[in-house]
């Protein structure tokens, strides 16, 4: 499908299929089209060309009301004038479900999202993480076929984010609802999703499980977006794929240690090669201790694995050097 806003191409001939019950991440820089794709799936935007199918049914022309999707908005879009209970119950009450059923279902959801006892509060009286979980419960209340989350953890601080990620993973394991979430945080995508869709400039760059994405990036963009990277001439090298030694070797370059940062388990070393190229290297603490390097030392560096990509972005095979 394709979608443009004026001159801006939000989706450029994108095609994607998502397996039932899976947890899929749409990953990419902002303005890359991921939120637009999510909104098209929800029916909040109409694609210019193309089709949307949900559970074997064509849904392109369906209004959002009829699609049976749950949508969690970036800033949660709480109904500020309703209590937490009424927020969660909204999807059920407008379908005129019996009161007892609504009450039972909402209580069940409140417990599930760990908001038991807070049903009488207003959204303004909740913390960011609680509001997030309320939005999730609201989206799940009428048992949608697809759950869509737009930057679900974007507005939360680091600790709450981590807690919620683990919690969402457990929730997905229990409920098995097909889930698609948008994120610009590669760590989040790799940790949560079983399939990651990398998007850039309105195109899909790669669809793959996390491990494959990291080890077999389809092109230079994916390689540099998913994880840190050094550019060496035409090749790309991961910081942990650079070996440091004290002995000269034929396939190695001389380099000077410029800076060493110890971050607990990980040690980052910045080097300047004899040809002036700057390199970032990641070592484990153990490796660093064994090496006994210090700022100003002259060492030898060698690329263990480097990747080159053709002009079209296609990978030429990885080169073990």
């Amino acid at each position, binding site marked *: 499908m394709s979608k443009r806003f004026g001159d801006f191409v*939000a989706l450029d001939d994108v095609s994607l299929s998502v397996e039932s019950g899976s947890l899929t991440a749409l990953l990419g820089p902002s303005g890359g089209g991921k939120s637009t794709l999510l909104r098209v799936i929800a029916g*909040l*935007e*109409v694609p210019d060309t193309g089709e949307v199918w949900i559970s074997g049914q064509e849904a392109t022309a369906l*209004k959002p009301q009829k699609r049976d999707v749950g949508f969690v908005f970036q800033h949660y879009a709480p109904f500020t004038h309703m209590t937490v209970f009424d927020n969660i119950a909204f999807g059920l009450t407008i379908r005129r479900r019996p009161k007892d059923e609504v009450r039972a279902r909402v209580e069940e959801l409140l417990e599930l999202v760990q908001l038991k006892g807070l049903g009488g509060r207003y959204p303004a009286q909740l913390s960011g993480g609680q509001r997030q979980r309320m939005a999730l419960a609201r989206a799940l209340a009428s048992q949608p076929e697809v759950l869509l989350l737009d930057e679900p953890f974007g507005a939360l601080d680091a600790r709450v984010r981590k807690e919620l990620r683990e919690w969402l993973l457990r929730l997905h394991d229990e409920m098995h609802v097909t889930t698609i979430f948008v994120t610009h945080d590669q760590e989040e995508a790799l940790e949560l999703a079983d399939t990651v869709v990398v998007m850039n400039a309105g195109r899909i760059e790669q669809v793959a499980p996390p491990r494959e994405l990291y080890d077999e990036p389809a092109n230079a963009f994916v390689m540099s977006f998913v994880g840190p990277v050094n550019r060496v001439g035409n090749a790309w090298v991961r910081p942990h794929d650079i070996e440091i030694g004290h002995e000269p070797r034929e396939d190695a370059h001389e380099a000077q240690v410029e800076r060493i940062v110890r971050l607990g388990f990980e040690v980052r070393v910045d080097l300047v090669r004899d040809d002036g190229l700057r390199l970032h290297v990641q070592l484990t603490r153990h490796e660093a201790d064994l090496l006994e390097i210090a700022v100003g030392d002259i060492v030898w560096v060698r690329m263990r694995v480097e990747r080159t990509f053709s002009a079209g972005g296609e990978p030429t095979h990885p080169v073990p050097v």
Partner: protein
Amino acid sequence: MPGARRRALGTPALSGGLALGYLSLIVLIPLAAVVAKAADGGWHHFWQVAWNREARAALELTFELAGGVVAVNAVTGTALAWTLVRDDFPGKSIVNAIVDLPFALPTIVAGLTLLALYGPTGGVGVDVAYTRWGVLMALLFVTLPFVVRTVQPVLIELDRDMEEAAASLGAGRFTIFRRIVFPHLLPALLSGVALAFARAIGEFGAVILIAGNLPFKTEVASLYVFEHINSDDPTGASALAVLMLVISFTLLLTIGGLRRWATRHDR
């Protein structure tokens, strides 16, 4: 998202069509009728009718008075806004509510109240009935809230830190007002006086009793139009009405521009 077209919220064509239809029926078509009437005899004829001595005198007086309204309101309106925001005294909230009274009070009543106090039987030693001073007073009455209500919110939002910073840099009170506060108030002040100006150009109810019916002396533009309708000269009335319409529209566009200018620091 640039130009995002959202579809979740009902049918744009229906609400847009209804809104446009209603607006056309109530506002656009009637105004078109005035323009059509004025243009009946062609451009030359229009000019002849609109630019006769009486009409010119009425327009001149109207602009003179509106200019006076702008000058007085710029000072008193800012002073009132300042008093309501930065000063504190018993009864302030009542004063704040009273400022809106001219918005709520029918204009004919406004004119009558001024005549009751400052007219021939007022007993305060002045008589402004049938004078330009009286007309000016009526215009000041109905335009009183405009500057106050545009400047007040800006003054409330204005960061006191800036003034304190200026003071710490050695600026005196007058310098702080002139260099720090005033530039922030200016766009709001200008759109306030523009609204007051527009109102003063078109005001009718408040002035009709005070002005009497004295061409060349107290006859402002709206009274001219009214008198010419009454004396069965719709073409003459339309000619001046079209000029007033153009002035109103120009002022509206100016005010819109001022609003955008006022928010230029926020973007």
